[in-house]
């Protein structure tokens, strides 16, 4: 009865040479090798694999090779002209009335015509005003011996923070100063005007008392209400301690920036320069820093514009591709290519970790659910259903803004992001694994393991898991692509990876307006291409793996 057909007697060796029996077959392929073979036959899958390998090299090796850091910024020193101040020369008379006097616009026009006609008094509404001209540039109008207004092309202005001077003080100051101007005494410490029209001045703040003393010595003093004030030829009026309380000058100087206080010596230098027709002022401030001011006269608005020339550190924002920066720089002046490499690193690592978390949770939950069945299965599947009902995008957005509010460290934030994405994506894998295990459990080889008394852990590890692996690998590969897309979306919305970490998503999010999009293609096109290629690669490889795992495919 014994069947000898398959058991070859030893003396039939010759026949074996030509037989098609099993032992003649040279190549023995394990299921894994077969899958690999089928995979590499699939051209698209190989293309996908090549793309992925290139992406990995680009991201992980590229970042090491690149000479620049992830958040290294690049900048250049540039001379910048900024508007510093405007100086206007008053040419017409300006009327100022005493605080309690009536000296309206109609009275002023009457006064004007009286002055032009050379009259010494005029009448308006039955009131007679007497015109005095104490100095050529000052007219005072008295009514019954009381000065009620004055007119001058000089303006009394106060330094920032000082109280407005009284009317009497104004009259006295203008009288004294215009009288001094008439004398045309050259000032001892007037700034020198060099031949090329540049005024060089050094700050001498701090010896204000000296300046007051000097002015007193020059006899440039006047008294108002019992206090003695001195003044210099620039029109600065100082009290006894040398503090500037007012400035009298036909020039009205105002800083372009309201916060800037123009130092008195600079002011004087600028006025000197204007009088000397110099176009440049080099000023060394109290800290020893040298500033260069350029004065230009705008005939139309009759304003002298003072511009300050400063050396500025300017970030190379949106620099075009060059030899140093192959893909240019982004809006922060960082090297785009390096940023892209590090971004790839972050995107890929996040993709892998998220899928790893999801797969781990999914396999454990799905495995328990499928293997034990019953109420455990019911419970886990209901949890999965609940997770399916959760709208993941709103949750991620809410959690993202919560993390914004908590001002988390970008690094911690990245970890939370991975955990959140992982926790939200395990149900799909759990369902897949459960389905697989349910169908495998009914296979006879599982019954055979029970019949041969193999322990439950061994049954799961050696028989169930290896048979679930193919579907699991395919599903994980596919979800890698979608996870990267999700991460990019979140980063684009500003809820994902944050600066200083780069990710392809937040690189693209730099392009938040049409101007950047249309003018700086090198910002977003490379990141977009990287994203496209990586996801395409994962999908190709996933498709290839699925086909390779399918035994119905041709070998």
């Amino acid at each position, binding site marked *: *009865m*014994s*069947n000898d*057909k*398959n*058991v070859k007697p030893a003396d039939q060796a010759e026949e074996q040479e030509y037989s098609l029996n*099993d*032992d003649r077959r040279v190549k*023995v*392929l*394990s*299921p894994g090798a*077969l899958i690999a073979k089928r995979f590499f036959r699939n051209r698209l899958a190989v293309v996908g694999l090549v793309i992925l390998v290139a992406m990995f090299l680009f991201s992980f090796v590229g970042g090491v090779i690149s000479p620049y850091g992830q958040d290294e910024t690049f900048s250049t020193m540039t001379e910048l002209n900024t508007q510093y101040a405007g100086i206007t020369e008053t040419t017409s008379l300006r009327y100022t009335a005493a605080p309690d006097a009536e000296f309206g616009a109609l009275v002023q026009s009457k006064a004007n015509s009286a002055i032009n006609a050379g009259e010494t008094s005029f009448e308006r509404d039955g009131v007679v005003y007497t015109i005095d001209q104490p100095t050529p540039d000052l007219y005072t109008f008295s009514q019954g011996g009381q000065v009620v207004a004055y007119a001058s092309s000089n303006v009394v202005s106060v330094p920032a923070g000082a109280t407005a001077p009284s009317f009497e003080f104004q009259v006295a100051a203008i009288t004294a100063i215009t009288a001094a101007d008439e004398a045309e005494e050259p000032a001892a410490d007037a700034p020198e005007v060099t031949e090329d029209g540049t005024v060089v001045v050094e700050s001498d703040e701090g010896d204000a008392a000296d300046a007051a003393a000097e002015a007193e010595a020059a006899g440039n003093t006047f008294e108002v209400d019992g206090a003695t004030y001195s003044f210099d030829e620039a029109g600065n009026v100082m009290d006894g301690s040398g503090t500037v309380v007012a400035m009298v000058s036909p020039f009205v100087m105002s800083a372009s920036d309201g916060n800037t206080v123009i130092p008195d010596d600079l002011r004087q230098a600028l006025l000197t320069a204007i009088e000397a027709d110099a176009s440049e002022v080099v000023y060394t401030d109290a800290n020893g820093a040298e500033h260069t001011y350029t004065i230009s006269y705008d005939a139309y608005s009759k304003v002298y514009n003072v511009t300050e020339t400063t050396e500025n550190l300017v970030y190379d924002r949106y620099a075009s591709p060059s030899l140093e920066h192959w893909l240019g720089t982004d809006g922060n002046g960082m090297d785009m290519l390096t940023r892209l490499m590090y971004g790839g690193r972050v995107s890929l690592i996040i993709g892998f970790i998220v899928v790893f978390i999801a797969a781990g949770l999914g396999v454990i939950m799905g495995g328990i659910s499928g293997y034990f069945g019953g109420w455990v299965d019911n419970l886990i599947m209901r949890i999965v259903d609940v997770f399916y009902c959760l709208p993941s995008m709103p949750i991620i957005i809410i959690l993202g803004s919560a993390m914004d509010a908590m001002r988390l460290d970008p690094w911690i934030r990245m970890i939370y992001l991975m955990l959140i994405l992982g926790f939200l994506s395990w149900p799909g894998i759990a369902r897949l694994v459960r389905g697989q295990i349910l169908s495998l459990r009914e*296979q*006879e*080889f599982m*019954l*055979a*393991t*029970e*019949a*041969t*008394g*193999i*322990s439950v852990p*061994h049954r799961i590890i*050696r*028989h169930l898991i*290896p*048979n679930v*692996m193919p579907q699991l690998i395919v599903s994980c590969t596919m979800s890698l692509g979608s996870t990267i897309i999700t991460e990019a979306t979140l980063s684009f919305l500003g809820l994902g990876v944050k600066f200083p970490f780069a990710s392809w998503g937040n690189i693209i999010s730099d392009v938040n307006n049409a101007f950047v999009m249309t003018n700086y293609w090198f910002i977003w096109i490379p990141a977009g291409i990287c994203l496209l290629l990586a996801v395409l690669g994962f999908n190709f490889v996933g498709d290839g793996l699925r086909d390779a795992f399918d*035994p119905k495919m041709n070998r």
Partner: protein
Amino acid sequence: MASTNTTVDVTSTQAPAAPGTEDIILEVNDLKKYFPIKGGMFNRTQGFVKAVDGVSFKLRRGHTMGLVGESGCGKSTTGRTILRLAGEKTGGQVLFNGREVYDFTAKELHDARTKMQIIFQDPYSSLSPRLPISEIVGEAVREHNLVPKDEFDDYIDKVMEECGLQPYHKMRYPHEFSGGQRQRICIARALALNPEFIVCDEPVSALDVSIQAQIINLLHDLQEERGLTYLFISHDLSVVEHISDAVGVMYLGGMVEYGFTEDIFRNPLHPYTKALFSAIPIPDPKAKQNRIVLEGSIPSPANPPKGCKFHTRCPFAKDCCKEIAPEQKELEPGHFVSCHLYDE
């Protein structure tokens, strides 16, 4: 057919003691296995599929018992219930070497697994596709520590050779084998544990005829070498006739006729057995075949007919068949029939 009482009364059930009463390895008394039908809102049990409903027989060591019947009559479930592979039994007794299988503790059951084995019908689904043959055959051997580690390889080689496999097959995977070879691997897997009793659950029905003969002969040889006991489940009567010492005929979960192979094939008594045997093809085109054609189809095991389960299709059904389940009667020595036709 034995009593259809759902209550388990072991003592009242007199299992037929044939063939031979000495050295009984397996005794099955009024075995019942019902599968609940779940449904409705809260997954309540709405009824039972009575897959095995009162099967009794005894099996002598070194003998083969064939279990025949049409598809869905509960043959496979009987085999699996005996091996405690289908969850808990519903009722009855399974005595393996005199001990109740369902009373084994986890440890005892684990040890008993080496003594009783099963060979499955489908050699394609019964081998894990991701393990090499040496693992499939040897895994359980290692699990039970049957052989020392250094003899392990030799032992596996030996078992495989016994089953007609070559040692170089060890590193291959199931997909590289034909159906017959796979069934040999299944046999090797069962045999590697050195069992006393093997349930052969339609081991050849998925194979073509020439391979069937090889496998049957292999099983036969192994039985002679090792003194194995088989419960041979099949719907192929000629195979059963060839290999079995005794035959049980099952219909709708119950055993209708049971006895020595020669007796049953020579003189089938139950109308169902007669009909079944009349369907055996005769390899002679000129021979006239008196086929007994049964009317209707097999009733649902979830709702079996009252009385004799076969009465709905029996050409000789009497009134009492519809009411009273027939007792199992020994009409010849070692030939048991459950039918009212033989009532005195």
